[in-house]
């Protein structure tokens, strides 16, 4: 019996020792859920790359208050079921203090009940406004709400005295949410939607819809979708000689769109995060320094241009870092500190979180850009 007690005691001591060393080593574990493969890979890949890069940079600079950060990333493949499994794994097995991601609205909505139950802060990289409306205690997001992009386009149209619009939205989650906001906000800005049409995410010819729009009273066409659909639409519009100005959503604000649409992209305007025009932003823009740093880092790490989407993960990691510095490396501390963050100049915009606002951005997060000579310029 004595012997057994001894072994037990030493085992316990050993266990305690390992636990305390792991605390002494002081790694803060942050989880990442990104759709690195699957249809939304265009979101997840830059997000994962960015998150890794930012965490590396933090560690190189000595970590957060002397503690190293470890990023545990899982690929959700854009699948909500997988996202839930991976979120549970991050919380139960990896014991992370906060989660960045998932990449899409659908996945985020599926993960919310898990993080709310386990009380782990989640900073989603998806755009859907329902993620933070109504506010859930542990759920934040960094991607700009669709409604902000819609407001930006409508205000631009108002300034240019146009009020009859045609909308052409893709029949997936992104398009449906855009369509909802376009319709909901039209009245407020005196807009009249004269044609409301959709196209499938895999459609390869939209001349039928555009012919119908060409025959309507519309003064401008707003297209809501992610590549490649909008590029096909731009080409079809050029083919049909569509005269009305073409507006796109922030879903295509990457160089990829310009390379897909080619000459047909000329003159297209869209609301975008400021990252793609960081070099031509006015000097007094509060985000300018963060944007330039991000673009430079991403370019030197991955040899491709950093985009808008990776920026959501940049904001996510940096917000968590700021929150840990203020509130300590516990889920509860991070959550409380996040809610108090003000004037955080990130990539997606200037964040001001509060107890009633877990999205934190205003329409100034977007800027209207125009495509000229295969590059972005600030639209006048």
């Amino acid at each position, binding site marked *: 019996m004595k012997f057994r007690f001894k072994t037990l005691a030493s085992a316990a001591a050993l266990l305690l020792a390992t636990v305390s060393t792991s605390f002494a080593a002081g790694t803060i574990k942050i989880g990442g859920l990104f759709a690195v493969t699957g249809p939304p890979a265009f979101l997840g890949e830059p997000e994962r790359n960015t998150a890794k890069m930012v965490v590396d940079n933090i560690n190189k600079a000595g970590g957060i208050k002397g503690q190293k950060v470890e990023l545990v990333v899982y690929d959700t493949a854009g699948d909500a079921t997988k996202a839930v499994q991976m979120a549970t794994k991050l919380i139960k097995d990896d014991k992370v203090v906060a989660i960045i991601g998932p990449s899409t609205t659908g996945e985020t909505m599926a993960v919310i009940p898990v993080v709310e139950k386990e009380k782990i802060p989640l900073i989603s990289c998806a755009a859907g406004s329902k993620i933070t409306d109504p506010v859930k205690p542990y759920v934040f997001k960094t991607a700009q709400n669709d409604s902000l992009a819609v407001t930006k386009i409508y205000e631009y149209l108002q300034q240019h005295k146009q009020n009859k619009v045609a909308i052409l939205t893709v029949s997936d989650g992104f398009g449906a949410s855009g369509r909802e906001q376009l319709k909901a906000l039209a009245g407020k800005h005196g807009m009249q939607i004269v044609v409301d049409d959709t196209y*499938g995410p895999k*459609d390869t*010819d939209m*001349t*039928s*819809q555009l012919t119908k729009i060409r*025959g309507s009273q519309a003064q401008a066409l707003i297209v809501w979708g992610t590549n490649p659909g909008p*590029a096909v639409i731009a080409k079809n519009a*050029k083919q049909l000689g569509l005269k009305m100005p073409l507006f796109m959503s922030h879903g295509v604000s990457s160089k990829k769109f310009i390379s897909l649409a080619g000459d047909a992209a000329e003159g297209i305007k869209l609301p975008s995060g400021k990252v793609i025009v960081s070099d031509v932003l006015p000097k007094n823009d509060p985000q300018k320094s963060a944007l330039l740093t991000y673009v430079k880092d991403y370019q030197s790490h991955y040899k491709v241009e950093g985009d808008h989407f990776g920026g959501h993960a940049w904001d996510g990691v940096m917000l968590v870092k700021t929150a840990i510095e203020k509130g300590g490396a516990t889920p509860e501390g991070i959550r409380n500190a996040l809610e108090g963050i003000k004037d955080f100049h990130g990539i997606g915009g200037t964040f001001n979180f509060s107890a009633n606002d877990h999205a934190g951005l205003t329409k100034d997060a977007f800027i209207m850009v125009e495509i000229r000579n295969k590059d972005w310029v600030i639209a006048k």
Partner: protein
Amino acid sequence: MELSHQLLQYLLSGLSTGAIYALIGIGFSIIYNATGIINFAQGEFVMLGGMMTLFLLEALHLPLWAAVPLAVCIVTLVGLGFERLAIRPLRNASPISLVIITIGGAILIRGLAMLIWDKDTHAIPPFSGDEPIMLAGATLLPQHLWILGITVVLISLNKWFFNHTISGKAMRACSYNPRAAGLVGVDVRRMVLLSFMISAAMGSLAGIIVAPLTMTAYDVGIMLGLKGFCAAIIGGMSSGLSTVIGGLILGVLESMGAGLISSGYKDAIAFIILLLILFIRPQGLFGKPESERV
């Protein structure tokens, strides 16, 4: 704008999309007639055509006139390899097993394409500029003319091949009765191989000529393959004119449907037609129940 102009535009858009469906559909029919199986990897040949051309253009910097034939040749070899590796070793399997194998092959090809290239969508430059051509109130791109022209040439070549060459006639013989064809000295296995090669070549060319308009990615084969399959069903699995007409009907109905009713029903239209034909006229729109399938 007048309705007649709109209708003409729908018609023209529909015809060029339909021409692509027709080419893919004929690929289905040729293999079906030679082997009795539906090759669901047909759409992947279409994808490979586009992606291979892109690869030759961008990575090897070949000019377009060299990249296109080379891409067709490479995909034809893939068709050959597919038959050798996936179909021939199981010649005695039932058609249903072979059909399932083609589905597996399709998934494999798609996955490899994703790994070798990437997940992005890519654009191929148009063959001869992109200045729209006005035609009685409707507009066309030069690429549309390429599509229609190449389709006409291919269909004619196909017709000539099956009616006027020994190999073509032998393939027809196999489609009537493989055993009898074998008895009179036709090498049935060679004909099966040939059918895969011809289908791969036609599919890849369809994928190449449509890519400047619709762009290409590793996963474009699924939808195009299904639409081509619809065209072949409407045409009663004939490798001749009725599949071409099937493809054109499908393209025009889709385009009219999207323009006049709602674009939400575009794909539904294709599949409703497919179901209706299978229920009501499984022999195809133009076939008599005991028609010859060539």
